C-alpha cells in the first residue's frame, strides 16, 4: 500500500514537474530576455564555425544533372509594386544597384554594367531554414570584385543589402526586405550578385533582376530584388537592429547552421 502510494506520488510529481517545466519553457520563449539568452548558442556557433570553415572554404558544387527542374521560390514571389512592375515591363533597363556607405568610391551599377563584369557560374545547393534543399545553377558577379571597385573604408564591418520587396502585410506601412553579411562572407569567392538562374535571366519569383548568393548560409540571408549595397560599421541602429528582416522577426543573424 505504502509502495502504491509512493508510486502514485512519484508519477504525479513527474507529470506535474514536466508540465511546469514546459510551461516555463514557453514563458522563456515569449520573453525578450529569454530569447537573447538562448541566442548565445548561435553566437557561439558563429565563432566556432568561423574557426572551422576557413575564409575561402567552398560550399560543395554539383553537376548539371543535379539541377532541379524547377527552382523552388520562397518568401516574396513577386514584389508587385507599381515601381517594380514598371521595371519588369522595361526588362529592368533602368534598374540600378547603388553601392554606398563606408566606401571611398560610391557608384551605381546598371544591369548591363553588372553583366559586363567578370562573372562566376556555380551549381550549388540552396538550403532553406525550413529544412528543404534545392539545386540550381547561378551566374553572377563576385561581390569581392564590386567591393574592390568601391574600396571599403577601414571601419566598414558589414555589408547591408537593400531590396525592393515590401514584407509588410499592411498597405499603409512599408517594410522593405534587407539583410547583412560580415566581410568574411562578403569576400568569399562564391558570394555573388546573381543575375542568371540555370542559364536564363532570374525569374521574378527567384529575385529578378539580381539576388545575393551566399552559399555557406541559409536561404534567408540571400536577399532578392537587390537594389543597394551599403557598407556599415554596425547594424545595431538600422531598422530592428538585428541585421535583417527575418532577424528582426527572431531568426538568428548567423545563418551558417
Amino acid at each position: 500500500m505504502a509502495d502504491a502510494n509512493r508510486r502514485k506520488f512519484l508519477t504525479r510529481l513527474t507529470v506535474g514537474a514536466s508540465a511546469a517545466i514546459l510551461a516555463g519553457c514557453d514563458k522563456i520563449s515569449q520573453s525578450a530576455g529569454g530569447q537573447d539568452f538562448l541566442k548565445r548558442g548561435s553566437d557561439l556557433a558563429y565563432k566556432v564555425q568561423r574557426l572551422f570553415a576557413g575564409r575561402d572554404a567552398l560550399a560543395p558544387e554539383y553537376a548539371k544533372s543535379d539541377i532541379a527542374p524547377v527552382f523552388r521560390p520562397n518568401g516574396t514571389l513577386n514584389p508587385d509594386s507599381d515601381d517594380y512592375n514598371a521595371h519588369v515591363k522595361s526588362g529592368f533597363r533602368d534598374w540600378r544597384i547603388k553601392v554606398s556607405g563606408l566606401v571611398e568610391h560610391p557608384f551605381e551599377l546598371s544591369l548591363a554594367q553588372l553583366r559586363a563584369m567578370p562573372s562566376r557560374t556555380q551549381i550549388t545547393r540552396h538550403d532553406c531554414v525550413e529544412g528543404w534543399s534545392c539545386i540550381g545553377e547561378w551566374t553572377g558577379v563576385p561581390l569581392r570584385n564590386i567591393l574592390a571597385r568601391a574600396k571599403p573604408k577601414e571601419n566598414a564591418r558589414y555589408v547591408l543589402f537593400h531590396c525592393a520587396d515590401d514584407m509588410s502585410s499592411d498597405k499603409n506601412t512599408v517594410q522593405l526586405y534587407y539583410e547583412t553579411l560580415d566581410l568574411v562572407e562578403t569576400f568569399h569567392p562564391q558570394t555573388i550578385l546573381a543575375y542568371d538562374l540555370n542559364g536564363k535571366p532570374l525569374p521574378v519569383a527567384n529575385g529578378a533582376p539580381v539576388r545575393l548568393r551566399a552559399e555557406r548560409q541559409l536561404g534567408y540571408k540571400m536577399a532578392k530584388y537587390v537594389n543597394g549595397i551599403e557598407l556599415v560599421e554596425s547594424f545595431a541602429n538600422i531598422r530592428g537592429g538585428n541585421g535583417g528582416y527575418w532577424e528582426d522577426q527572431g531568426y538568428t543573424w548567423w545563418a551558417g547552421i
Partner: protein
Amino acid sequence: MAFLSSAADDAPEKRLVYRHTLWVRIAHWVNAGVLLIMLMSGLQIFNAHPALYWGATSHFDSPLLSMTAIRMPDGRIEGITWIGRAHFDTTGVLGASEIFGQVTPRGFPAWATLPSWQSLAVGRQWHFFFAWIFVLNGLAFAAYAFLSRHFNRDLLPKTADIRNLGKDILDHLRLRFPKGKEALHYNVLQKLAYFSVIYIVAPLIVLTGLTMSPTMDAAIPQLLFVFGGRQTARTTHFLCAFAFVGFFIIHIVMVVLSGPLNNLRAIITGRTAIEPEAENG
C-alpha cells in the same frame, strides 16, 4: 530519501550497494532534460517543413514521409500522414491538430513541440543552445567512462555477453530480472542498449545535425559523402531522434517492471538494494 527506503525495501536480506557514481548520475539527469528539449524543439523545426527526403535535395513530389492537411468539402481539416505512397488519417495528432480549440494544419501537435505555438525561429534558438550542452555533456561522459574504465567494464558488450544473448532475451520476455550479484552489472541487452544509444545514436545525431549546416558542409565536405547528402542526413537525424524515443520508452518500461523505486533511488543517490539470489535464499 528516507521515504524511498522504508517499508518494503527494509526486508532484512536486502543490502544497499553503491551502484552509480556521481558523474554517471549527473550526466544521466543533464541528458534527460536536454534530450527532452532537443526532441521537442526538433519537432518544432520539423514542423516548418514536415516532410523527409533521401539524397542531396528535396524531391518535393516524392517525399519518404510527409504530414499534410486537407480541407474536406464540409470545411473540416484532416491531417494526412504519408509514408511513401501509403497514407493514413492522423487528424488530431499528425498533419492537423487542435490549437486553441481549432484544428489547424501542423506536423506534430502543440503538446509535442517547444515552444508549443508555431515558431521556427524560437525552436531553432532552443535547439542550438541545448545542442551545445548535449555535446559537452556527452563528451564529458565519454571521457569519464573511458578513463574510469566504466566503458570497458560495464558498457562494452563482450563475447561472453553475446553468448548469453538468447537466455537474456528469454529472461526479459518472462520479466525475470537478475537478482543478487548478477544485478550489479548490466546484462547483455542493457549493454547493447546503452552502448548503442551512447556510442552510436548520439554521435550519429550530432554529425547528421552538423551535416545540415551549410557552413559545416563547406568546412568538412566529407560529411555529405559519409551521410549521403543533406536530405539523407536530415532523415537520419529524424530517425535517430525516434531511436532515442524508442530507447526512452523501453528504458522507462524496464525501470517500472524491475522495481521503480529502487531504480529511482539508485540513479538519484547512487545506492541500490540487492535482493538475495533465489538459490541462496
